């Protein structure tokens, strides 16, 4: 069976076709802001200008009539971007006379992570621009056990990067700088139960930079503090749920220092640490296509009348009937 998936909740625009085992084709064209952060309307404009050609390129590799189901990310995300994606998906479903599946973007990250690793029933750390959550399955739903009380780790990294004159996306640039950082400056370490917060840290790190501290040391101190927080809450969730598997997903998951810290933590508690390949980490069409395929096989279909976008779509809202 083949599923076509469209992702475009924020800056990433990506279309892919997958079957049960692998990615058959993937085409992406991310929106890059000229300056500053993401502007939702500009991003939507970018999506509407490029989605047609991405779909055409997929169809040059996988024939339209071979496709069994059309999947799209229904939320959470920026309304204007989501509407472009949903419209394109509806048109394809009607035109090809195929069922439509609206999927939850966060759940797609998680299920694609399980798809591309050996993780069975893990605690999942999901870290991206706007999302930073600790998720685990409990019965027929996934539950959020901990999350950021303000901004996501990716946005925190971007804000700090912009303040230090680095362009979007800031995460990889901070990572590179941090590698040559040497001196640790204490920053607010905010962990409350399994929740955490980053905005105070960003402000404090920006002040360090304004006060003349080297960019490398700011980046280093920031990463060490923020990632220690994420590792600590992951460990707490694993202890609480008595789980010996941790899965890392989301764009910030590509950071090798974060992977290293989580790996050490797991090693020290005899647990297994899983991270999917880098191309699966960031927002991509393949994860949407895969979750759509999984859901379709388990009896889910989204009627056109129920396909309106859900900017605040929470992972807990999805009933999960698969293993």
């Amino acid at each position, binding site marked *: 069976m083949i599923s076509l998936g469209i992702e475009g*909740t*924020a*800056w990433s625009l990506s279309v892919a076709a997958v079957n049960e085992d692998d990615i058959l084709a993937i085409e992406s064209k991310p929106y890059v802001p000229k300056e500053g952060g*993401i502007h939702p309307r500009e991003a939507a404009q970018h999506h509407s200008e490029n989605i047609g050609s991405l779909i055409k390129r997929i169809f040059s590799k996988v024939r339209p009539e071979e496709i069994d189901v059309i999947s799209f990310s229904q939320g*959470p*995300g*920026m309304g204007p971007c989501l509407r472009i994606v949903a419209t394109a998906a509806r048109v394809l479903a009607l035109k090809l006379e195929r069922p439509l599946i609206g999927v939850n973007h966060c759940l797609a990250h998680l299920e694609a992570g399980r798809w591309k690793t050996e993780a069975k029933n893990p605690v999942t750390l999901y870290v*991206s*621009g*706007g*999302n930073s959550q600790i998720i685990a399955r*409990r019965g027929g739903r996934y*539950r*959020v*056990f*901990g*999350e*950021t*009380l*303000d*901004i*996501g780790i*990716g*946005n925190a990294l971007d804000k700090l990067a912009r303040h230090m004159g680095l362009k979007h996306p800031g995460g990889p640039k901070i990572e590179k700088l941090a590698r040559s950082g040497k001196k*640790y400056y*204490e920053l607010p*370490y905010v*962990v*409350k*139960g*399994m*929740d955490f917060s980053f905005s105070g840290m960003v402000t404090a790190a920006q002040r360090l930079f304004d006060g003349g501290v080297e960019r490398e040391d700011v980046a280093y101190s920031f990463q*060490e*503090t923020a990632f*220690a927080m994420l*590792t*600590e*809450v*992951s*460990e*707490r*969730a*694993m*202890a*609480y749920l008595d789980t010996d598997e941790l899965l890392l997903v989301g764009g910030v998951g590509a950071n090798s220092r974060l992977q*290293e*810290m*989580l790996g*050490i*933590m797991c090693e*020290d*508690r005899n647990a297994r640490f899983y991270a999917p390949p880098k191309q699966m980490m960031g927002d991509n069409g393949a994860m949407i296509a895969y979750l759509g395929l999984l859901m379709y096989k388990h009896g889910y279909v989204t009627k056109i009348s129920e396909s309106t976008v859900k*900017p*605040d779509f929470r992972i807990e809202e999805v009933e999960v009937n698969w293993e």
Partner: protein
Amino acid sequence: MSVQIYLGGEAEVRIYDNFVEKIRRKKRYRIGELDSILRKSRTKTEARIISVARKNGVPTPIILDVEGEKILMERIKGDPVKKIMNAEISKEIGRMVARLHNAGIIHGDITPMNMIFSEGKTYFIDFGLGFFDDRIEAKGVDVHIYFESLKASYDDWSELKDAFIEGYLTYPKAKDVLKRVEEIEERGRYVERRMKS
């Protein structure tokens, strides 16, 4: 002497027949500077908070000794609240959190996992993430964390939440805090809407 070892997110807890040892061991995943700051400050603060909480009528274990990154305390024998949770206990938790907040203590991790029910009393056994703060905001986040932990673990969380509120209303500023809790929930959603990427 038998010992059970529990590896929490933040400390190792060794449970002996009559006492409990809480050790904040070095975490290899974090750099030495940060590791030592966290272990020392949390141990010191925790010992202090436990004694202040007791003085304010909140059932806690008695501290027997504090040494570096190690706290030795009395062992409370009873049932884990996580397993026997009901509305009556949630209401009692509300009354105890009211006492903590009245004393300016933020627990930092109010979840059923951190409590033991023994001889009719609900003991708070883990103040590892606690701190002193008298602001409404800190108290709001404290209560918010409890509500989130109920949602994550119990299907009848709504009833347990109402019971907690009933008990918590014994705190004079409870209404202000509960109003802030609603704002914190809203804020989360707003941030999600705006910052999604």
